[in-house]
Protein backbone atom coordinates (compact mmCIF):
# COMPACT_ATOMS: atom_id res chain seq x y z
CA UNK A 1 0.00 0.00 0.00
CA UNK A 2 1.20 3.51 -0.72
CA UNK A 3 1.96 5.66 2.28
CA UNK A 4 0.85 8.77 0.45
CA UNK A 5 -1.38 9.04 -2.55
CA UNK A 6 -2.38 12.30 -4.14
CA UNK A 7 -4.79 11.70 -6.98
CA UNK A 8 -5.70 14.32 -9.57
CA UNK A 9 -5.02 17.22 -7.23
CA UNK A 10 -6.22 20.61 -8.38
CA UNK A 11 -5.50 23.77 -6.45
CA UNK A 12 -6.43 27.24 -7.49
CA UNK A 13 -5.88 30.66 -5.99
CA UNK A 14 -8.49 33.25 -6.95
CA UNK A 15 -9.63 31.14 -9.90
CA UNK A 16 -6.08 30.63 -11.15
CA UNK A 17 -4.99 27.00 -11.30
CA UNK A 18 -1.64 26.55 -9.63
CA UNK A 19 -1.75 22.75 -9.38
CA UNK A 20 -3.22 21.22 -12.49
CA UNK A 21 -4.32 17.63 -11.99
CA UNK A 22 -1.23 16.26 -10.31
CA UNK A 23 -1.02 12.69 -9.07
CA UNK A 24 1.84 11.36 -7.00
CA UNK A 25 2.32 8.40 -4.74
CA UNK A 26 4.98 7.61 -2.20
CA UNK A 27 5.77 4.17 -0.89
CA UNK A 28 7.03 3.46 2.59
CA UNK A 29 10.77 4.07 2.88
CA UNK A 30 10.89 5.91 -0.42
CA UNK A 31 12.61 9.23 -0.96
CA UNK A 32 11.02 11.47 -3.53
CA UNK A 33 12.51 14.76 -4.61
CA UNK A 34 10.55 17.45 -6.36
CA UNK A 35 12.45 19.94 -8.47
CA UNK A 36 11.31 22.69 -10.77
CA UNK A 37 11.46 26.41 -11.39
CA UNK A 38 10.25 28.85 -8.80
CA UNK A 39 6.50 29.40 -9.03
CA UNK A 40 5.82 25.97 -10.49
CA UNK A 41 3.68 24.95 -7.52
CA UNK A 42 6.06 22.79 -5.49
CA UNK A 43 5.33 24.47 -2.17
CA UNK A 44 1.63 24.51 -2.90
CA UNK A 45 1.70 20.78 -3.54
CA UNK A 46 3.41 20.15 -0.19
CA UNK A 47 1.00 22.52 1.52
CA UNK A 48 -1.90 20.56 0.05
CA UNK A 49 -0.38 17.29 1.26
CA UNK A 50 0.08 18.71 4.76
CA UNK A 51 -3.39 20.25 4.81
CA UNK A 52 -2.19 23.82 5.02
CA UNK A 53 -4.11 24.47 1.81
CA UNK A 54 -7.51 23.11 0.90
CA UNK A 55 -7.63 21.31 -2.41
CA UNK A 56 -10.09 22.25 -5.15
CA UNK A 57 -10.09 18.85 -6.75
CA UNK A 58 -8.82 15.29 -6.37
CA UNK A 59 -8.18 13.31 -3.23
CA UNK A 60 -5.39 12.70 -0.74
CA UNK A 61 -4.87 9.40 1.02
CA UNK A 62 -2.48 8.42 3.77
CA UNK A 63 -2.14 4.65 4.18
CA UNK A 64 -5.30 4.27 2.17
CA UNK A 65 -7.25 6.50 4.56
CA UNK A 66 -8.94 9.42 2.89
CA UNK A 67 -7.43 12.65 4.19
CA UNK A 68 -9.17 14.96 1.74
CA UNK A 69 -11.59 14.55 -1.11
CA UNK A 70 -14.22 16.45 -3.01
CA UNK A 71 -17.71 16.20 -1.55
CA UNK A 72 -20.91 16.01 -3.58
CA UNK A 73 -21.28 19.79 -3.50
CA UNK A 74 -17.85 20.25 -5.08
CA UNK A 75 -16.38 21.46 -1.81
CA UNK A 76 -13.39 19.69 -0.28
CA UNK A 77 -14.09 17.45 2.69
CA UNK A 78 -11.56 17.07 5.47
CA UNK A 79 -11.84 14.72 8.42
CA UNK A 80 -12.60 16.20 11.82
CA UNK A 81 -11.81 15.46 15.44
CA UNK A 82 -9.92 12.31 16.29
CA UNK A 83 -9.74 11.19 12.67
CA UNK A 84 -8.11 14.47 11.67
CA UNK A 85 -5.69 14.18 14.55
CA UNK A 86 -4.69 10.70 13.52
CA UNK A 87 -4.14 11.64 9.89
CA UNK A 88 -2.12 14.68 10.90
CA UNK A 89 0.11 12.46 12.99
CA UNK A 90 1.17 10.59 9.85
CA UNK A 91 3.16 13.48 8.45
CA UNK A 92 5.62 16.19 9.45
CA UNK A 93 6.76 19.27 7.57
CA UNK A 94 10.05 21.14 7.62
CA UNK A 95 9.65 24.72 6.42
CA UNK A 96 12.03 26.79 4.39
CA UNK A 97 12.27 29.38 7.17
CA UNK A 98 12.13 26.89 10.07
CA UNK A 99 9.20 28.48 11.94
CA UNK A 100 10.65 27.49 15.28
CA UNK A 101 8.80 28.84 18.31
CA UNK A 102 11.03 31.73 19.43
CA UNK A 103 9.72 31.81 23.00
CA UNK A 104 10.62 28.18 23.62
CA UNK A 105 14.10 26.84 24.20
CA UNK A 106 15.49 24.30 21.74
CA UNK A 107 14.47 21.32 23.84
CA UNK A 108 11.01 22.78 24.55
CA UNK A 109 10.46 23.30 20.83
CA UNK A 110 11.01 19.58 20.41
CA UNK A 111 9.17 18.13 23.41
CA UNK A 112 6.15 20.41 23.58
CA UNK A 113 4.03 18.81 20.88
CA UNK A 114 4.75 15.19 21.87
CA UNK A 115 3.81 16.02 25.46
CA UNK A 116 0.91 18.39 24.90
CA UNK A 117 -0.51 17.05 21.64
CA UNK A 118 0.30 13.36 21.78
CA UNK A 119 0.09 13.26 25.60
CA UNK A 120 3.13 11.08 25.86
CA UNK A 121 5.11 10.66 29.07
CA UNK A 122 7.45 13.57 29.81
CA UNK A 123 10.44 11.50 30.82
CA UNK A 124 10.39 9.38 27.71
CA UNK A 125 9.83 12.36 25.40
CA UNK A 126 12.74 14.29 26.91
CA UNK A 127 15.04 11.28 26.55
CA UNK A 128 14.05 10.89 22.93
CA UNK A 129 14.46 14.60 22.28
CA UNK A 130 17.98 14.54 23.72
CA UNK A 131 18.84 11.58 21.54
CA UNK A 132 17.55 13.49 18.53
CA UNK A 133 19.58 16.56 19.45
CA UNK A 134 22.64 14.38 19.73
CA UNK A 135 21.99 13.00 16.28
CA UNK A 136 21.66 16.57 15.00
CA UNK A 137 24.94 17.50 16.63
CA UNK A 138 23.19 19.99 18.89
CA UNK A 139 23.50 18.45 22.34
CA UNK A 140 25.11 21.58 23.72
CA UNK A 141 22.25 23.77 22.46
CA UNK A 142 19.48 22.13 24.45
CA UNK A 143 18.77 25.22 26.53
CA UNK A 144 19.55 27.85 23.91
CA UNK A 145 16.80 29.87 22.26
CA UNK A 146 16.31 29.88 18.49
CA UNK A 147 17.48 33.49 18.25
CA UNK A 148 20.87 32.38 19.55
CA UNK A 149 21.35 29.79 16.80
CA UNK A 150 22.58 29.97 13.23
CA UNK A 151 20.18 29.21 10.40
CA UNK A 152 21.65 25.76 9.93
CA UNK A 153 21.25 24.99 13.61
CA UNK A 154 17.67 26.28 13.55
CA UNK A 155 16.82 24.04 10.64
CA UNK A 156 18.31 21.04 12.40
CA UNK A 157 16.19 21.81 15.46
CA UNK A 158 13.15 22.09 13.19
CA UNK A 159 13.95 18.66 11.76
CA UNK A 160 14.30 17.23 15.26
CA UNK A 161 11.00 18.86 16.22
CA UNK A 162 9.25 17.19 13.31
CA UNK A 163 10.88 13.81 14.00
CA UNK A 164 9.93 13.88 17.68
CA UNK A 165 6.33 13.22 16.71
CA UNK A 166 7.38 10.03 14.90
CA UNK A 167 5.72 10.84 11.58
CA UNK A 168 5.50 8.18 8.93
CA UNK A 169 6.47 10.64 6.24
CA UNK A 170 8.44 13.87 6.39
CA UNK A 171 8.04 16.71 3.90
CA UNK A 172 10.78 19.26 3.32
CA UNK A 173 10.10 22.53 1.53
CA UNK A 174 13.45 23.86 0.34
CA UNK A 175 15.10 23.17 3.70
CA UNK A 176 18.34 24.89 2.77
CA UNK A 177 17.12 27.81 0.66
CA UNK A 178 17.07 30.28 3.55
CA UNK A 179 20.61 29.36 4.62
CA UNK A 180 23.96 30.88 3.82
CA UNK A 181 25.78 28.60 1.37
CA UNK A 182 28.31 27.49 3.97
CA UNK A 183 25.49 26.25 6.22
CA UNK A 184 23.60 24.09 3.75
CA UNK A 185 26.04 21.20 4.12
CA UNK A 186 25.21 20.52 7.75
CA UNK A 187 21.48 20.36 7.02
CA UNK A 188 21.88 18.17 3.95
CA UNK A 189 24.08 15.86 6.02
CA UNK A 190 21.30 15.46 8.57
CA UNK A 191 18.72 14.73 5.88
CA UNK A 192 21.08 12.18 4.37
CA UNK A 193 21.39 10.47 7.75
CA UNK A 194 17.60 10.18 7.84
CA UNK A 195 17.68 8.58 4.42
CA UNK A 196 20.01 5.95 5.83
CA UNK A 197 17.34 5.20 8.43
CA UNK A 198 14.81 4.59 5.66
CA UNK A 199 12.56 7.42 6.75
CA UNK A 200 10.03 8.22 4.04
CA UNK A 201 10.66 11.70 2.70
CA UNK A 202 9.38 14.10 0.10
CA UNK A 203 11.91 16.84 -0.52
CA UNK A 204 11.44 20.00 -2.52
CA UNK A 205 14.92 21.28 -3.22
CA UNK A 206 17.15 23.28 -5.50
CA UNK A 207 20.19 21.24 -4.43
CA UNK A 208 20.42 19.22 -7.63
CA UNK A 209 23.46 17.12 -6.75
CA UNK A 210 21.88 16.28 -3.43
CA UNK A 211 18.54 15.36 -5.00
CA UNK A 212 20.25 13.15 -7.53
CA UNK A 213 22.26 11.34 -4.92
CA UNK A 214 19.62 10.84 -2.25
CA UNK A 215 16.40 10.19 -4.15
CA UNK A 216 14.76 6.97 -5.22
CA UNK A 217 12.59 8.99 -7.53
CA UNK A 218 12.56 12.53 -8.85
CA UNK A 219 9.69 14.64 -10.11
CA UNK A 220 10.28 17.65 -12.31
CA UNK A 221 7.44 20.12 -12.09
CA UNK A 222 6.72 23.14 -14.24
CA UNK A 223 3.70 25.45 -14.35
CA UNK A 224 1.60 23.32 -12.04
CA UNK A 225 2.18 20.06 -13.87
CA UNK A 226 4.50 17.10 -13.63
CA UNK A 227 6.76 17.22 -16.67
CA UNK A 228 9.02 14.30 -15.88
CA UNK A 229 9.10 11.59 -13.28
CA UNK A 230 11.46 8.72 -12.76
CA UNK A 231 14.76 7.50 -11.38
CA UNK A 232 17.21 10.33 -10.68
CA UNK A 233 19.41 9.55 -13.64
CA UNK A 234 16.42 9.24 -15.95
CA UNK A 235 15.20 12.69 -14.99
CA UNK A 236 18.51 14.52 -14.67
CA UNK A 237 19.92 13.07 -17.86
CA UNK A 238 16.68 13.24 -19.84
CA UNK A 239 16.89 14.67 -23.28
CA UNK A 240 14.01 17.02 -22.70
CA UNK A 241 14.14 20.73 -23.51
CA UNK A 242 12.45 22.04 -20.40
CA UNK A 243 14.55 20.14 -17.91
CA UNK A 244 17.74 20.80 -19.85
CA UNK A 245 16.89 24.47 -19.78
CA UNK A 246 16.07 24.33 -16.07
CA UNK A 247 19.21 22.39 -15.12
CA UNK A 248 21.31 24.60 -17.37
CA UNK A 249 20.49 27.55 -15.18
CA UNK A 250 21.92 25.72 -12.18
CA UNK A 251 25.09 24.62 -13.90
CA UNK A 252 25.78 28.13 -15.12
CA UNK A 253 25.04 29.62 -11.66
Amino acid at each position, binding site marked *: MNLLEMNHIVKEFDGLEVIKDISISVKEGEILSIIGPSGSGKSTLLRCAT*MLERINGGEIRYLGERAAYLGGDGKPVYPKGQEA*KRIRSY*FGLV*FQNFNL*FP*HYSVIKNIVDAPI*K*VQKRARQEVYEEARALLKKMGLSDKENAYPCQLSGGQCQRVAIARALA*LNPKILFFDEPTSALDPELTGEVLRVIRSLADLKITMVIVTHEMAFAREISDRVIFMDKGKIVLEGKPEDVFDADHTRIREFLGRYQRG
Partner: protein
Amino acid sequence: MSFSVMLEQLCGGMLKSMEIFFLTLLFSLPLGLLIAFGRMSKNIVLRTVIKVYISVMRGTPLMLQLLVVYFGPYYLFGMSIGGSYRFTAIILGFSLNYAAYFAEIYRSGIASMPVGQYEAAQVLGYGKAQRFVRIIFPQVVKRILPSVTNEVITLVKDTSLSFSLAYAEMFTIAKQIAAAQTNFMPFVVAAVFYYVFNLAVAVVMETLEKKLSYYH
Protein backbone atom coordinates in the same frame (compact mmCIF):
# COMPACT_ATOMS: atom_id res chain seq x y z
CA MET B 1 -7.31 70.58 60.01
CA SER B 2 -3.91 69.28 60.95
CA PHE B 3 -1.57 68.00 58.29
CA SER B 4 -1.72 64.48 59.71
CA VAL B 5 -5.52 64.36 59.59
CA MET B 6 -5.40 65.65 56.04
CA LEU B 7 -2.81 63.06 55.13
CA GLU B 8 -4.90 60.35 56.70
CA GLN B 9 -7.91 61.29 54.60
CA LEU B 10 -5.78 61.51 51.50
CA CYS B 11 -4.33 58.08 52.24
CA GLY B 12 -7.84 56.66 52.33
CA GLY B 13 -8.35 58.23 48.91
CA MET B 14 -5.13 56.71 47.61
CA LEU B 15 -6.29 53.24 48.57
CA LYS B 16 -9.57 53.79 46.76
CA SER B 17 -7.74 55.00 43.65
CA MET B 18 -5.52 51.96 43.72
CA GLU B 19 -8.56 49.75 44.15
CA ILE B 20 -10.12 51.27 41.02
CA PHE B 21 -6.83 50.82 39.18
CA PHE B 22 -6.34 47.16 40.03
CA LEU B 23 -9.96 46.13 39.60
CA THR B 24 -10.11 47.86 36.22
CA LEU B 25 -7.05 45.97 35.04
CA LEU B 26 -8.37 42.73 36.48
CA PHE B 27 -11.56 43.01 34.43
CA SER B 28 -10.50 44.92 31.34
CA LEU B 29 -7.46 42.83 30.40
CA PRO B 30 -9.39 39.55 29.95
CA LEU B 31 -12.48 41.35 28.64
CA GLY B 32 -10.32 43.13 26.08
CA LEU B 33 -9.11 39.78 24.78
CA LEU B 34 -12.68 38.53 24.40
CA ILE B 35 -13.60 41.73 22.57
CA ALA B 36 -10.57 41.31 20.32
CA PHE B 37 -11.81 37.82 19.42
CA GLY B 38 -15.21 39.29 18.61
CA ARG B 39 -13.57 41.96 16.51
CA MET B 40 -11.74 39.27 14.51
CA SER B 41 -14.72 36.91 14.33
CA LYS B 42 -15.86 35.41 11.05
CA ASN B 43 -19.40 36.37 11.98
CA ILE B 44 -19.95 39.71 10.32
CA VAL B 45 -22.74 40.80 12.68
CA LEU B 46 -20.65 40.20 15.78
CA ARG B 47 -17.62 41.76 14.14
CA THR B 48 -19.53 44.89 13.19
CA VAL B 49 -21.20 45.27 16.59
CA ILE B 50 -17.82 45.01 18.28
CA LYS B 51 -16.29 47.44 15.84
CA VAL B 52 -18.95 50.04 16.64
CA TYR B 53 -18.55 49.36 20.35
CA ILE B 54 -14.80 49.94 20.22
CA SER B 55 -15.23 53.03 18.10
CA VAL B 56 -17.75 54.55 20.53
CA MET B 57 -15.69 53.71 23.61
CA ARG B 58 -12.60 55.27 22.09
CA GLY B 59 -14.42 58.17 20.47
CA THR B 60 -16.31 59.59 23.47
CA PRO B 61 -14.97 60.98 26.75
CA LEU B 62 -14.46 58.46 29.52
CA MET B 63 -16.04 60.92 31.96
CA LEU B 64 -19.20 60.94 29.89
CA GLN B 65 -19.20 57.15 29.81
CA LEU B 66 -18.92 57.03 33.59
CA LEU B 67 -21.92 59.34 33.90
CA VAL B 68 -23.91 57.21 31.47
CA VAL B 69 -23.09 54.00 33.29
CA TYR B 70 -23.98 55.56 36.64
CA PHE B 71 -27.11 57.52 35.74
CA GLY B 72 -28.23 55.35 32.83
CA PRO B 73 -30.08 52.73 34.88
CA TYR B 74 -32.07 55.51 36.60
CA TYR B 75 -33.00 57.46 33.49
CA LEU B 76 -33.63 54.42 31.34
CA PHE B 77 -35.30 52.02 33.76
CA GLY B 78 -36.11 54.17 36.78
CA MET B 79 -33.86 52.00 38.90
CA SER B 80 -32.62 53.47 42.13
CA ILE B 81 -28.96 54.29 42.05
CA GLY B 82 -26.46 55.46 44.61
CA GLY B 83 -25.06 53.58 47.58
CA SER B 84 -22.80 50.79 46.52
CA TYR B 85 -23.74 51.19 42.85
CA ARG B 86 -21.50 54.26 42.65
CA PHE B 87 -18.43 52.10 43.02
CA THR B 88 -19.81 49.38 40.75
CA ALA B 89 -20.52 51.97 38.08
CA ILE B 90 -16.98 53.28 38.26
CA ILE B 91 -15.42 49.83 37.90
CA LEU B 92 -17.90 48.96 35.15
CA GLY B 93 -17.30 52.21 33.26
CA PHE B 94 -13.53 52.01 33.49
CA SER B 95 -13.46 48.31 32.58
CA LEU B 96 -15.71 48.72 29.55
CA ASN B 97 -13.65 51.65 28.32
CA TYR B 98 -10.22 50.16 28.89
CA ALA B 99 -11.29 46.80 27.49
CA ALA B 100 -11.97 48.57 24.19
CA TYR B 101 -8.46 50.02 24.13
CA PHE B 102 -6.89 46.72 25.15
CA ALA B 103 -8.93 44.91 22.50
CA GLU B 104 -7.35 46.99 19.78
CA ILE B 105 -3.92 46.36 21.25
CA TYR B 106 -4.51 42.61 21.40
CA ARG B 107 -5.88 42.64 17.89
CA SER B 108 -2.90 44.40 16.37
CA GLY B 109 -0.58 42.12 18.34
CA ILE B 110 -2.31 39.01 17.10
CA ALA B 111 -2.40 40.33 13.54
CA SER B 112 1.34 41.00 13.66
CA MET B 113 2.16 37.34 14.31
CA PRO B 114 3.82 35.64 11.33
CA VAL B 115 1.52 33.11 9.69
CA GLY B 116 4.34 30.55 9.86
CA GLN B 117 3.85 30.25 13.60
CA TYR B 118 0.23 29.21 13.07
CA GLU B 119 1.20 26.81 10.30
CA ALA B 120 4.03 25.18 12.22
CA ALA B 121 1.74 24.65 15.19
CA GLN B 122 -1.01 23.27 12.98
CA VAL B 123 1.26 20.77 11.28
CA LEU B 124 2.59 19.70 14.68
CA GLY B 125 -0.97 18.82 15.61
CA TYR B 126 -1.82 21.58 18.09
CA GLY B 127 -5.54 22.22 18.28
CA LYS B 128 -6.82 25.75 17.79
CA ALA B 129 -7.07 26.50 21.50
CA GLN B 130 -3.71 24.93 22.34
CA ARG B 131 -2.10 26.77 19.48
CA PHE B 132 -3.35 30.09 20.74
CA VAL B 133 -2.56 29.50 24.39
CA ARG B 134 0.85 27.87 23.97
CA ILE B 135 2.29 29.38 20.80
CA ILE B 136 0.56 32.58 19.76
CA PHE B 137 -0.53 34.37 22.93
CA PRO B 138 2.80 34.27 24.81
CA GLN B 139 4.46 35.92 21.82
CA VAL B 140 1.64 38.44 21.49
CA VAL B 141 2.11 39.46 25.12
CA LYS B 142 5.72 40.35 24.47
CA ARG B 143 4.82 42.30 21.34
CA ILE B 144 2.08 44.37 22.97
CA LEU B 145 3.72 45.06 26.30
CA PRO B 146 4.92 48.59 25.38
CA SER B 147 1.42 49.60 24.24
CA VAL B 148 -0.13 48.05 27.32
CA THR B 149 2.30 50.01 29.49
CA ASN B 150 1.10 53.24 27.89
CA GLU B 151 -2.52 52.40 28.65
CA VAL B 152 -1.76 51.36 32.21
CA ILE B 153 0.03 54.64 32.89
CA THR B 154 -2.93 56.53 31.46
CA LEU B 155 -5.22 54.51 33.68
CA VAL B 156 -3.38 55.63 36.81
CA LYS B 157 -4.17 59.23 35.92
CA ASP B 158 -7.65 58.44 34.61
CA THR B 159 -8.76 57.05 37.97
CA SER B 160 -9.10 60.72 38.97
CA LEU B 161 -12.09 60.97 36.61
CA SER B 162 -14.06 59.17 39.31
CA PHE B 163 -14.54 62.59 40.84
CA SER B 164 -17.29 63.08 38.24
CA LEU B 165 -19.36 60.55 40.21
CA ALA B 166 -18.23 62.11 43.48
CA TYR B 167 -16.57 58.89 44.49
CA ALA B 168 -14.15 59.44 47.38
CA GLU B 169 -10.90 58.47 45.72
CA MET B 170 -7.67 60.42 45.85
CA PHE B 171 -8.53 63.27 43.54
CA THR B 172 -12.07 63.85 44.85
CA ILE B 173 -10.80 64.04 48.42
CA ALA B 174 -7.93 66.30 47.53
CA LYS B 175 -10.33 68.65 45.80
CA GLN B 176 -12.72 68.64 48.76
CA ILE B 177 -10.03 69.35 51.33
CA ALA B 178 -8.42 72.01 49.21
CA ALA B 179 -11.76 73.79 48.79
CA ALA B 180 -12.76 73.51 52.45
CA GLN B 181 -9.38 74.50 53.89
CA THR B 182 -8.36 76.88 51.13
CA ASN B 183 -5.12 74.99 51.19
CA PHE B 184 -3.01 74.09 48.20
CA MET B 185 -1.24 71.24 49.98
CA PRO B 186 -3.69 68.44 49.06
CA PHE B 187 -3.03 69.02 45.37
CA VAL B 188 0.68 68.72 45.94
CA VAL B 189 0.15 65.46 47.82
CA ALA B 190 -2.12 64.23 45.03
CA ALA B 191 0.43 65.08 42.38
CA VAL B 192 3.15 63.26 44.28
CA PHE B 193 0.88 60.27 44.74
CA TYR B 194 0.03 59.92 41.04
CA TYR B 195 3.61 60.46 40.05
CA VAL B 196 5.03 57.90 42.45
CA PHE B 197 2.31 55.42 41.57
CA ASN B 198 3.22 55.77 37.92
CA LEU B 199 6.91 55.39 38.67
CA ALA B 200 6.09 52.12 40.40
CA VAL B 201 3.97 51.03 37.42
CA ALA B 202 6.82 51.88 35.07
CA VAL B 203 9.25 49.83 37.15
CA VAL B 204 6.92 46.83 37.21
CA MET B 205 6.32 46.99 33.45
CA GLU B 206 10.01 47.40 32.75
CA THR B 207 10.77 44.34 34.86
CA LEU B 208 8.16 42.43 32.91
CA GLU B 209 9.68 43.53 29.61
CA LYS B 210 13.13 42.49 30.81
CA LYS B 211 11.76 39.11 31.84
CA LEU B 212 10.46 38.62 28.32
CA SER B 213 13.63 39.83 26.64
CA TYR B 214 15.23 36.37 26.78
CA TYR B 215 14.22 36.00 23.14
CA HIS B 216 13.45 38.22 20.20
